[in-house]
């Protein structure tokens, strides 16, 4: 019984040492010398106490966990600690004297050395982060193998004493290192985890507070009321309001937003709670010290560890972006107006003159007039193309897709092109191999594509050249190909063909006009209508542009003859006037008859 009490006493001393180690260890972590000295002193005192409390478990053999203390000193405190505690314990053992003095001293020294070797190996391999596996190695090697070897080598005692000693000392030391080392390591790991958790939270809070905009976590309680479990410091930047305000009175956000936007927030939360989809919308905020602020609110729903639905999201200030967008729109509108107004006069006047309706003029004047007209046309196209590109890129180009027969549109485009053609004797042939085939397209945009490709083909065709436009159906696709007999597109230019402002530039091509935007507009339009555009080219033989759209079914519709309708309209207007000569005419009423 006494021996058990003594063992418990010894264990308690070591536990106190362990707690000291943890207490100092945290403050002295990473300091080999100072940490080593503190650990060494603690373990030296511990060793002295356990050595003076040895237990006689087997008659004649006194044992204590001194080797375990030496091992732990090296394992936890490193070489300095191991040296201090080992020297102290060896000196104490020497002072006790007796038959096993040398063997006892050697066993303490060997335990300390072996633990330091293991410490060095582990530190190099894994860094200063002891684990339970490390403690197991520390328990197994020094306490068993080295210990046994030392005793065997150095013992002058009879084999019987030696065997009894080893059978006691080895397991006690092994178990002591395992239990106490494990205790130290798990306590250290717990504290480190806690500390790194706190550090991580501080990191995340710093990141969240410095992120642009306001980050938040939002949820609805069981009564459907809004709660903010977290709001970042960004609330001050966005709203000029402290984050605590949101945490304490979450409904406050509805007061900040316009009534419609607040309603919108309620709606998106309800919808997102059901669909579990991300939500995002724009709102305005009347900032107390700034002008109107545009906000972008967005959040992603998820289920947290307590099975509650929460939204992690952000509110960002998009005022600058909104203002830029507005400025760009205004700029485009102004440029388009300011450029088009003089162009309307120039182009209009030249067109009227060239049409011959204002009287005949000498051949030399006509030639100059044609030049001026062609260039005003080019300028007009440039303005239109730039505006088209802007519209396509900003997504504001309207597309009204409907199933339309392609052959009639192609014929119209060819006819329209023929009207603008100069005197070059280029022939355009239409091969219709898929009469009536239809695509889901916007007729005006389709016309723009064909007109553009035709004008390109004409531009590069030799005089008296042939352009073949072909419509066919291939694997469920309507394929329109436009082939010319031009010079072909050089390999070096092919990859730039659909890029903006790129034109194959050679001496005679500049004179052929064009803005360098046509093909990039074509490509953008074709792709918006679910089609593809490509080309095949051969130098000095010609180029074929191929546009494909998925074929759709179409209900047959009688052709509209606008001219016919215009005539009947006029007749109806006249009839209405004759019928009601005394009353002022009412064209709207007449129109609706």
């Amino acid at each position: 019984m006494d021996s058990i009490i003594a063992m418990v006493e010894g264990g308690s001393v070591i536990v106190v040492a362990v707690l000291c180690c943890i207490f100092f260890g945290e403050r002295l972590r990473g300091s080999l010398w100072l940490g080593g000295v503190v650990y060494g002193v603690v373990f030296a005192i511990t060793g002295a106490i356990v050595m003076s409390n040895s237990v006689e478990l087997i008659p004649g053999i006194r044992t204590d966990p001194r080797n375990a203390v030496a091992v732990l000193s090296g394992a936890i405190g490193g070489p300095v600690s191991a040296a201090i505690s080992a020297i102290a314990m060896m000196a104490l053992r020497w002072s006790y004297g007796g038959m096993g003095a040398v063997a006892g001293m050697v066993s303490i020294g060997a335990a300390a050395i072996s633990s330091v070797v293991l410490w060095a190996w582990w530190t190099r391999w894994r860094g200063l982060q002891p684990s339970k596996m490390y403690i197991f190695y520390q328990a197994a090697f020094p306490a068993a193998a080295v210990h046994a070897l030392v005793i065997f080598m150095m013992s002058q005692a009879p084999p019987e004493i030696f065997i009894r000693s080893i059978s006691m000392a080895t397991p006690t030391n092994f178990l002591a290192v395992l239990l106490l080392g494990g205790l130290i390591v798990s306590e250290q790991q717990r504290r480190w985890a806690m500390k790194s958790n706190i550090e991580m939270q501080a990191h995340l809070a710093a990141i969240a507070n410095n992120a642009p905009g306001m980050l938040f976590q939002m949820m609805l309680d069981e009564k459907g009321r809004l709660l903010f479990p977290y709001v970042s410091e960004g609330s001050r930047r966005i709203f000029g309001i402290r984050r605590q305000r949101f945490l304490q009175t979450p409904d406050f956000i509805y007061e900040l937003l316009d009534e419609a936007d607040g309603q919108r927030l309620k709606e998106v939360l309800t919808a997102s709670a059901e669909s579990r989809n991300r939500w995002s919308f724009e709102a305005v905020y009347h900032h107390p010290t700034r002008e109107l602020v545009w906000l972008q609110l967005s959040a992603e729903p998820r289920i947290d560890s307590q099975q509650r639905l929460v939204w992690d999201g952000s509110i960002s200030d998009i005022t600058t972006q909104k203002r830029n967008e507005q400025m760009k729109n205004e700029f485009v509108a102004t440029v388009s107006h300011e450029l088009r107004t003089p162009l309307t006069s120039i182009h209009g006047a030249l067109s009227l003159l060239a049409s011959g309706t204002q009287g005949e003029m000498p051949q030399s004047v006509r030639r100059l007039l044609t030049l001026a007209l062609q260039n005003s046309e080019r300028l007009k196209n440039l303005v239109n193309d730039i505006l088209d590109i802007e519209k396509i890129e900003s997504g504001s180009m309207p597309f009204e897709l409907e199933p339309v027969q392609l052959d009639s549109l192609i014929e119209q485009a060819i006819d329209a092109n023929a009207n603008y053609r100069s005197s070059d004797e280029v022939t355009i042939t239409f091969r219709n191999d898929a009469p009536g085939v239809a695509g889901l397209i916007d007729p005006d945009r389709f016309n723009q594509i064909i007109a553009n490709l035709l004008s390109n083909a004409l531009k590069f065709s030799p005089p008296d050249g042939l352009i073949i436009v072909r419509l066919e159906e291939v694997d469920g696709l309507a394929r329109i190909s436009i082939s010319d007999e031009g010079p072909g597109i050089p390999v070096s230019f092919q990859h730039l063909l659909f890029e903006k402002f790129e034109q194959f530039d050679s001496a005679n091509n500049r004179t052929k006009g064009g803005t360098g935007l046509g093909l990039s507009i074509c490509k953008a339009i074709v792709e918006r209508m679910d089609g593809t555009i490509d080309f095949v080219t051969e130098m000095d033989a010609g180029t074929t542009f191929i546009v494909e759209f998925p074929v759709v079914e179409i209900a047959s519709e009688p052709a509209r003859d606008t001219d016919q309708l215009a005539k009947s309209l006029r007749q109806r207007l006249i009839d209405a006037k004759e019928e009601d000569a005394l009353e002022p005419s009412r064209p709207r009423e007449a129109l609706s008859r």
Partner: protein
Amino acid sequence: MDKLRVLYVDDEPDIREIATISLGLGDEFAVKSCASGEEAVPLAKTWQPDVILLDVMMPVVDGPETLRRLRSADETSDIPIIFVTARTQKQEIESYIALGALGVIPKPFMPMELVQQVKETLVSATR
């Protein structure tokens, strides 16, 4: 046979002149023009055009305001109005239609096609 009466309103004298000549081609329309919304309303009341072509960007009384004034006067409230403008961004066109314009003819217009464009806009509105 009476010609369709067209009133063209634009503050740019050059464009007004070209538009007047263009609308007169083919001798299908009787054309009058004026330089502002202020002139347009009384002229429309007395002359009773069948259609009014309105520029959008005009000083003092712009196109949309002219449209409102024409709509609010009994004598002119039913006259179809077509905007002729260089401001043809999507949202702009939508706003003209929302105001009650019959359609939009973009500037620069093609003089040789203007008559046809006016007719088509009128016809498309009756479909």
